[in-house]
């Protein structure tokens, strides 16, 4: 009986601690919105963060996108040629990238590269009392540190996802046209005819904006909430990757189902 009670108590504790963390993260999100006006007065802070989260992520995004595009080209051609429609390879690569792989893989890479950097930076600033020092100087860390990073993430993600899709299409082209020998005119014209701006491209951008909000808020919250120790920061960094990845995949399903049904 006692073991059973302990079991339910542990479940209750686990649930309530997660609910508390979710509440705290939501509170942080609203505080960021409240302090955003203060933050925009010092726009150079946001621009600086766009450089660190966006420009510094370009290499990994471009290289990954090129390989993903090439793999899509190979796999697509292998399947399509069975049905005699290998000219549709351009459409397949473009739609797969614009609708799904562009936003999702970019967000996963962003969580691993920029998200972990944000969490570790904020966590270490907390551990070394830099955030407390700022508070004691009557400067809000939310306005000065957190909000610029949030907006940088939200602005950066759709741009990175667009670059990912473009480079991915280029990777697919390199494999399909010069290597396999698919007709170049068919590759581009079918893509142009079948990729819809509103339904495919805009929906992809909407997804990447949502992923940008989710990834950045998770990274910021984990850093802000990290215990001020080496172990605490390390655990928070791991949680950023795990939670962001799960959130991206779950949100992708929800958004896709709404977009398809709508």
């Amino acid at each position, binding site marked *: 009986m006692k073991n059973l009670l302990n079991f339910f108590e542990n479940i209750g504790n686990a649930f309530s601690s997660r609910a508390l963390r979710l509440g705290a993260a939501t509170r942080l999100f609203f505080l960021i919105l409240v302090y955003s006006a203060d933050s925009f007065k010092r726009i150079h802070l946001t621009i600086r963060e766009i450089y660190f989260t966006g420009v510094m992520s370009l290499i990994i995004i471009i290289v990954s996108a090129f390989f993903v595009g090439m793999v899509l080209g190979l796999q697509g051609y292998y399947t399509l040629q069975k049905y005699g429609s290998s000219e549709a390879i351009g459409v397949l690569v473009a739609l797969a990238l614009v609708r799904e792989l562009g936003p999702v893989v970019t967000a996963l890479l962003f969580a691993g590269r920029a998200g972990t950097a944000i969490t570790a930076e904020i966590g*270490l*600033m907390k551990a*070394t*009392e*830099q955030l*407390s*020092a*700022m*508070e*004691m*100087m*009557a*400067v809000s860390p939310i306005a*000065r540190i957190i909000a610029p990073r949030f907006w940088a993430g939200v602005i950066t993600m759709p741009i990175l996802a667009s670059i990912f899709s473009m480079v991915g299409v280029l990777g697919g082209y390199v494999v399909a046209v010069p290597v396999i020998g698919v007709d170049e005119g068919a590759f581009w014209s079918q893509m142009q005819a079948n990729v819809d701006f509103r339904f495919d491209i805009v929906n992809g951008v909407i997804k990447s904006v949502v992923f940008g909000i989710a990834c950045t808020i998770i990274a910021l919250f984990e850093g802000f909430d990290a215990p001020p120790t080496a172990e605490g920061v390390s655990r928070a960094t791991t949680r950023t990757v795990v939670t962001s990845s799960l959130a991206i995949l779950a949100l992708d399903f929800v958004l896709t189902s709404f977009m398809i049904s709508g």
Partner: protein
Amino acid sequence: MPNSIISIKDLNFGYGDHLLHKGIDMEFPRGKVSAIMGGSGSGKTTILRLIGGQIKPTSGQVDVDGTIVHQQNRDGIYRLRRKMGMLFQHGALFSDLSVFENVAFPMREHTDLPENIIKDLVLLKLNAVGLRGAAYLMPPELSGGMARRVALARAIALDPDIIMYDEPFAGLDPISMAVICDLIRSLNDALGATSIIVTHDVAETFSFADYIYFVADGVVAAEGSPKQLMASKLPFVKQFIHAEKDGPVPFHYNARSIKEDLAL
């Protein structure tokens, strides 16, 4: 105490059921250097955090320059903090900013001074702590003592009325320690500020502080000038000043008897 800039009355503070402070009364007179001493975990730093409004007392009040801190909203607390400068235990310098930018930070945030004036002021503040030549170094390039001095220059950037020091001597070599002691006293007198130092370094603090509070078991165990405390017969004060390993503060943490633990 007349003409106090900070007055703490019947302060109780704790986490959960555990009370860290049980009815503390303290007065910090204007223009003086006061110290709060006590063992590790006695809640000395917490008193600074209560003065700065980072946490709220369970009961009692902290009055800073006629304003009760915990009754203020965020803007009120930020207004109070503009009268304060704080030196954190390890400096807490912003690691992505140079020494110059660290000291300029409060000026840029709270004033509209033109860049040439900010430059002159920052260099003067750095000169006061002897680090004008280090203005363009980054924090990782500084020694512990230098980082503490830069943090001190940043703490006095806006000429505060109150300067709080959290363990300013921790981990410093004797030369750096002497430099920091001298700076605390000379800057306090030059700025006409009020300084509060939280520390457990007896020799340094007794050499320059005007008034000292000893905190133990959540209460003010003793208080007075360094001379009065040196002459004190109170067992706790004697144990602390003379660094005796056993006394009112026991050597052993609370435990069962050794016979029970070793099953003798």
